[in-house]
């Protein structure tokens, strides 16, 4: 092989492996601050995703091994598992993962053909169908009196039994949910953020989870697996929209930093909106995609029926991708700019 050697990170398996590696800081922080329940959720999602992938590959007449080992199903499983409440019941995890792999991925044509991000479809199906279970998040350990061990978390997830504590002692509303509920009860933002769940920027624990996802996202950017366009535009969309609203009425709209430091935003910006299949592909298109998704996220959080809007915003923008890509084709080198004579 001739020099110079350029490290090629372009195969599907390698890209997927780096995405998984970039998610590790987030998982570590989740275990540290929210307890080991996430490990059970992740394992169950992986097993379900691989089983569903194998079954669908067989049904569609594809060879199982190359597609099962490309890690794409595991990435979907992890992204979905990280979006779910930490102590979600097992059937919730299985249903969401099955929907993501079977319907959103394989019924649309498999890897590279899906117009919607599979993990977000799984999430959307769950939040629409099971809103109660989807809003019972395990609170940060620093706020719960009786942290659950790994075995106890597993028994909660599989059996629905809470050993030493009741459901309410372990689970609580997320900061976004608390903000939403508080605003509906006519409290002002300043009154709401005196609740113990709120930290410096986001929620206690949740802001560190967001920072860990940000770190993983920066790693992907440093490796040039993702470009800066989508994440930056997404975060800018969130910050500008939330900042605009907050500037006019700080009592009724959360601060832009608070909206930015939710884990879902960082996960969405760096790991989900950057999906090369369901996201925009042209540079200008990526900026439009990110800004639009950020704007819609705040709109849905503020006026929608659900506490968080990242999943719906990204799915809606997924729907616009063909249109965005159509109108943002980059100029081919040497071709005249619109309205200008080509230089002789």
């Amino acid at each position, binding site marked *: 092989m001739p020099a110079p050697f350029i490290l090629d990170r372009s195969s599907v398996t390698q890209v997927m492996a780096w995405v998984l590696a970039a998610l590790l800081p987030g998982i570590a922080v989740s275990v540290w601050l929210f307890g080991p329940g996430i490990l059970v959720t992740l394992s169950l999602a992986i097993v379900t995703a691989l089983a569903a992938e194998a079954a669908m590959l067989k049904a569609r007449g594809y060879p199982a091994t190359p597609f099962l080992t490309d890690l794409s199903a595991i990435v979907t499983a992890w992204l979905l598992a990280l979006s779910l409440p930490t102590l979600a019941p097992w059937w919730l995890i299985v*249903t969401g993962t099955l929907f993501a792999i079977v*319907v959103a991925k394989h*019924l649309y044509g498999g890897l590279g053909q899906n117009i919607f991000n599979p993990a977000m479809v799984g999430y959307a*199906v769950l939040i*629409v*169908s*099971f809103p109660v279970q989807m809003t019972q998040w395990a609170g940060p350990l620093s706020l719960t009196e009786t942290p659950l061990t790994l075995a106890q978390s597993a028994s909660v997830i599989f059996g629905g039994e809470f050993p030493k504590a009741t459901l309410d002692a372990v689970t609580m509303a997320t900061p976004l949910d608390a903000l939403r509920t508080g605003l509906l009860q006519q409290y002002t933002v300043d009154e709401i953020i005196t609740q113990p769940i709120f930290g410096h920027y986001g929620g206690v624990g949740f802001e560190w989870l967001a920072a860990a996802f940000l770190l993983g996202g920066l790693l992907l950017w440093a490796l040039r697996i993702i470009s800066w366009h989508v994440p930056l535009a997404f975060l800018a969309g969130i910050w500008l929209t939330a900042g605009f609203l907050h500037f006019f009425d700080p009592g009724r709209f959360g601060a832009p930093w608070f909206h930015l430091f939710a884990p879902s935003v960082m996960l969405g910006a760096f790991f989900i909106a950057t999906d090369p299949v369901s996201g925009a592909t042209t540079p200008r298109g990526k900026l439009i995609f990110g800004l639009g998704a950020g704007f819609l996220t705040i709109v849905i959080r503020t006026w929608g029926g659900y506490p968080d809007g990242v999943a719906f915003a990204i799915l809606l923008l997924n729907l616009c991708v063909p249109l965005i890509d159509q109108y943002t084709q980059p100029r081919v080198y040497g071709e005249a700019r619109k309205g200008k004579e080509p230089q002789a």
Partner: protein
Amino acid sequence: MMTMNEFRSLFHNGLIKQNTGLVQLLGLCPLLAISNNVINALSLGLATMLVMAASSGAVSSVRHFVPHEIRIPVFVLIIAALVTVIDLLMNAFVHPLYLVLGIFIPLITTNCIVLARADAFAAKNHPLHSAVDAIAMGLGLTLVLVVLGAIRELAGQGTLLSGIDLVFGEEAKQFVLHVLPGYKGFLLAILPPGAFIALGLLIAANNWNKARIEQHARAAVPVPA
């Protein structure tokens, strides 16, 4: 008069070969909106079938007197009159169900299946053939509606025939089948996305079955040497 063979081919056409729900994909609006349980689906399917049978028979009877250029408005007027009759009848005799189905009963007028059969078949055929064709088409639609309603009701709330009391009164509540007792429900199946997904799966199953039959038929024919 019609022969047994014609009769059979009309029914085969309506139920399978040109099934409005699975093959022609006509009239999807009521199909998707009303198929959230078996009783709603069956009621609307039967109402549509009645309108179709009557309107096809009527259109066919007047087909020689209607100038070709204005046939569509005439057909629509006939259909609208018949729908009004059904609408008033349902309002009088099954009022609770009438409230549930709401706008979808008057909307049978605009259902393209009804007009399609009137223009494509009844305007060119004998009244008896036309009525039989309309009944077969309506039955095909009703069948898809009921299967779709059953899938969505079962997946969505684990019951069958819920809402039967709207048709037969309070005592009929005991006929509701709780197929999956203790089932927590899967809201998505009842909501509009569930209709699209379930109909998509039904169409796929139908196409798969058709492809399999064709393959069998091809395999049965000996290859010429």
